[in-house]
């Protein structure tokens, strides 16, 4: 397998073939190109495939374009003057790249923004109600959310601005769950949280995937944690996919170890300077 191929991105088909899960395909991102304001090219030839009941993680350094990929899928790009200018995104064999966010939420795609954006002056319960899209099933959905996130139930009438970071992260995941999504786009859930909490939240995400028949596309800086729960992974660099593979393969991959896990082949941690140098050289050669 050739890593970091020279020039352009790989053909989507190869990537799709690698994702050898037996489940049905839920989402395909087919060579999309994204521009902001019609001129600023941020993504080119990004491809991706998410199957049912699968956790796929998207790794990459700051500014690689991970969040933009999520926003292109969820439709939020349009409210930021961004546009999918080439390629297409299909969800359940329906083309969705021209749809707006509220239609996509109804179809089953929901994005959880990074930075734990709770509605600060609303209570926990009110926050969850905002996420509900079906009035008929609101009650049962609420109970389900409280089932997964025990701490939230105890504080259901508390204003959310003063909750701890972990509780806020749980709340935004629960709020997304209220819409009964088929695909959850989860952006940096571990940001600024203690490792133990990250573990807990990732654990819940795993069980959501199994019990709610849901797929997760997970964007993470914390590559080690992300690859430990993911089935498949993609690596992005400057607006394109440079590498993809099954999560356990990626974990063993030398380049991923160097760049994202901060480990050398001996398993020792290396200083950032060396990694940076190595990375630059690698990119140059690529």
């Amino acid at each position, binding site marked *: 397998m050739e890593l970091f191929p020279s020039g352009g991105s790989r053909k989507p088909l190869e990537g799709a073939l690698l994702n050898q899960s037996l489940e049905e395909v839920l989402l395909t991102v087919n060579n999309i190109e994204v521009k902001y304001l019609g001129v600023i090219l941020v993504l080119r030839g990004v491809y991706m495939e998410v199957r049912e009941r699968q956790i796929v993680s998207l790794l990459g350094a700051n500014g690689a374009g991970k969040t933009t990929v999520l926003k292109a899928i*969820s439709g*939020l790009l349009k*409210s930021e*003057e961004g546009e999918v200018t080439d390629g297409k995104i299909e969800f359940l064999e329906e083309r969705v790249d021209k749809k707006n*966010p*509220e239609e996509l*939420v*109804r179809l089953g795609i*929901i*994005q*959880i*923004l990074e930075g734990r*954006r*709770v*509605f*600060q*002056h*609303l209570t926990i319960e*009110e*926050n969850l*109600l*905002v*996420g509900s*899209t079906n*009035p008929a099933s609101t009650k049962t959905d609420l109970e389900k959310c409280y089932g997964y996130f025990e701490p939230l139930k105890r504080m259901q009438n508390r204003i959310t*601005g*003063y*909750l701890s*970071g972990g509780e806020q992260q749980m709340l935004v995941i629960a*709020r*997304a769950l209220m*819409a009964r999504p088929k695909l959850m786009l989860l952006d940096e859930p571990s940001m*600024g949280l203690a490792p133990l909490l990250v573990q807990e939240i990732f654990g819940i995400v795993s069980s959501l995937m199994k019990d709610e028949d849901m797929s997760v596309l997970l964007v993470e800086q914390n590559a080690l944690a992300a690859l430990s729960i993911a089935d498949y992974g993609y690596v992005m660099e400057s607006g394109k996919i440079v590498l993809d593979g099954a999560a356990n393969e990626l974990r063993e991959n030398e380049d991923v170890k160097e760049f994202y896990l901060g480990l050398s082949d001996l398993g020792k941690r290396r200083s950032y300077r060396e990694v940076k140098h190595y990375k630059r050289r690698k990119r140059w050669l690529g």
Partner: protein
Amino acid sequence: MQMILQGIFTGLAVGAIYGLCALGFVIIYKSTGILNVAQGGLVMLGSFLCYTFSVTIGFPMWLSFIASVALAFLLGMIIDRLLFRPMIGQPLLGVVMMTIAFLSIIEGVTIFIWSVNYYSYSTVFPETPIEVGGVIMSHEYVWAMGVCLFFFILVGFFFRYTRIGLKMRAVSEDQLAAQAAGVGVKTIFSLSWAIGTAIAAAGGIILGLISMVYFGLSFIGLKAMPVVILGGLESILGAILGGIIIGVLENLAGIYLEPYLSGIKDVAPFVVLMIILIIKPHGLFGLERIERI
């Protein structure tokens, strides 16, 4: 004693109307983030619409009231669709300029249709006022208070207990997050303009009832501005209480201080406003951003 009670009563009635005008302003500001300078113009327009329905066409007063408020509701949706939808995401200054331009258009159209005259609704209330404990209450004032109270409760209930009201509150807190959660932000904007305009019209009609229907209502409607700042820009309760505070202050200053300092009636509310803002920069009930990371 009699005089102070009388002053407070009149102040409450006038203040309730200020509060109502401010409420329309706050609803638009809260969800769309637009500082609508044209709110006073909408207040005036409401009173003229009701005049046309009740006097020119000859509907009974209650029907004219409902018809004008309903028409204003539609007008609000049209305003949003035509003028402010294209401005989403544009700098605040441009949007505010748009409201200023819109204000002068409302005023121009009003002069064109109704000219600069004073009108009054045909009297619907008995001439003899009600007297309670020496305080004289005209029927207009009592009705004005009643209608304002009705709207306050209605709006409060709407935001607290309905799904769509809850969604409007969510949008006012974080537009992008609300959008990500599947809230149709454009629908919310449209509805906010509709409700804000309808409430402005209701305020205008009541103002026209206790004074006259005339061009100057536009300026009285603009009293909403200090009221809103006093109460806190995002607060519905603040708008209502702010209106009442300013109404009462204005009246008491008019009664007690006017003989010594002429013109104090209009200045007193602003003096209090300044003092309150120095002590509480967010206004009495404004939301402080919760900083918790």
